[in-house]
């Protein structure tokens, strides 16, 4: 029986991150070895009952193959995430993973530019870790509503890595959306840039426009409600452009299996999903 996507994992550390956000470190040697930035795991909440019924998909925020651990950063958004945050060290969890298609590696000529909106930082944190290991320099743009939403800012090498922050309330960094400093940066930048992004839909839509305008390549990681997480239920749909470029015809891809990372130009994002 093939069960390589099924894992029993153990919580080794659990703590609040910044405001409304949580950190879990999990003992998961096979996942730590196999996971790629942009991929996610699908966690079953422990307990005997059937409620909550579905698993919870969470981006992998870092992997340490030598220690056999992975990290998760997530925002407390509802019952499932609240229940996860309450679990104690030593708790055993069942998860599926690593699932989905991750970010593709930049070409030798491309300089990676990572753009995170809020807790959308999680998959990009994993990409950052991978780039740092390969000693590839990058730019990191991170927007949030306020200064108290950021964490681990010391985890950047200020000599090699450019970190730009933005907040909605101006409490730190640029006062306004993070896409504005991204755009200003690209205006003055020579050479190929590959943008990697995860965050709220309005941010991703701005980046689609910006990438097109400045000729940058763009990969975005999407979030959607999921049931199976493996591509069977068709519950997590995102509208994509048809291969024949027919604007009138409508096609959906599966966020879990065809994504969660998509090329910026292939998805049709809508603030009001589906409208």
């Amino acid at each position, binding site marked *: *029986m*093939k*069960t*390589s*996507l*099924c894992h029993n994992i153990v919580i080794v550390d659990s703590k609040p991150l910044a405001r409304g956000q949580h950190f879990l470190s999990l003992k998961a040697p096979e996942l730590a070895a196999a996971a790629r930035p942009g991929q996610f795991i699908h966690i*079953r909440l422990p307990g005997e*009952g*059937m*409620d*909550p*019924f*579905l*698993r919870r998909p969470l981006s992998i925020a870092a992997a340490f193959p030598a220690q056999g651990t992975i990290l998760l950063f997530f925002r407390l958004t509802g019952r499932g995430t609240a229940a996860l945050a309450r679990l104690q060290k030593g708790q055993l969890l069942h998860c*599926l993973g690593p699932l989905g298609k991750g970010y593709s590696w930049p070409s030798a000529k491309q300089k990676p530019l990572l753009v995170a909106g809020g807790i959308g930082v999680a998959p990009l944190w994993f990409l950052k870790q991978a780039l740092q290991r390969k000693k590839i320099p990058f730019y990191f743009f991170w927007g949030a509503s306020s200064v108290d939403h950021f964490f681990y800012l010391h985890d950047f090498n200020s000599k090699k890595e450019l970190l730009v922050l933005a907040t909605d309330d101006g409490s730190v960094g640029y006062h306004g959306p993070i896409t504005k400093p991204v755009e200003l940066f690209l205006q003055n930048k020579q050479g190929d840039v590959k943008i990697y992004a995860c965050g709220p839909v309005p941010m991703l839509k701005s980046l689609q426009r910006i990438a097109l305008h400045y000729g940058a390549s763009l990969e975005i990681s999407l979030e*959607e*409600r*999921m*049931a*199976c*997480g*493996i*591509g*069977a*239920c*068709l*519950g*997590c*749909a*995102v*509208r994509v452009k048809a291969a024949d470029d027919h604007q009138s*015809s*409508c*096609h*959906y891809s599966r966020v879990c*299996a065809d994504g969660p990372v998509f090329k910026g130009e292939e998805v049709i994002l809508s603030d009001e*999903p*589906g*409208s």
Partner: protein
Amino acid sequence: MTSLEVKLGPLSLKNPVMAASGTFAFGREYSSFFSLKLLGGLVTKGITLRLRPGNPPPRIVETPAGLLNSVGLQNPGLHGFLQDELPFLQQIGVPIIANIAGETIEEYEALVEGLLPSGTLAAIELNVSCPNVSKGCLSFGADPRSLYQLVTRIRKLCPLPLIVKLTPNDIDITEAARAAEAAGADVLSLINTLKGMVIDIEKKKPFFHLKIAGLSGPAVRPIAVRMVWDTFKAVKIPLIGMGGITNYADALQFIMAGASAVAVGSANFVDPLTIPSIVEGIERYLKEQGYSSPKDLCGIAHQ
């Protein structure tokens, strides 16, 4: 000697646990988790004559002990199914049941005619119960006369075992069951999802674009068991029971209420290995209780 084999009229299954339509796609995704040979049968995602993109998101929301879906029969259409999905399904080596959905009787007929030449399907399941499309489908299932007409027409041209999947919505399910039986159905499967709804209190609007969606999962199980119980008394043809089955004990409830076989749907989303574990559990139960076949338990709760 315990054998898990069951016969549903003309259809034979080597065990009574099937994958339910719409929860298992066309099998490929689950083949990374277990050998699909362990399935009693595989009922495909609903197939329509032409490709259907499905409904705009959001398509699912979790509810107490279950979920609502509004997928809207996204599927590659008859041609896409034959070309891209059937070859994979054929090599599994278990009965493949094509679930078909149409807006008109003619569409159902065209689907059957298009599927027959492949020669490898074990049965056809008429989907007359999807609550998530605006035309056809449920309008047949919720009206005994329309259902009788549809099943009669399909029966004429379909030499394969014919399963009719009944809806729990908008009709006394035993009436629909009698109509389908009278029109020549070989087997009935029940239940499809129950119509349900969630309101988004931030937006002060229904959560789904189509407002109403289909409820499944353990939340519906007692209703489904009761419907199998009632339908067992109403008709003579065999039943496939489903609705919130998550383990072998749930499956046995359906069998004891009168189902000859069961199908597992939403539970596959939570644990991809649900079906093989139910097959094992039923076999263990039969041995422990000294039964030689699941059919010895079929409807036993009525005695």
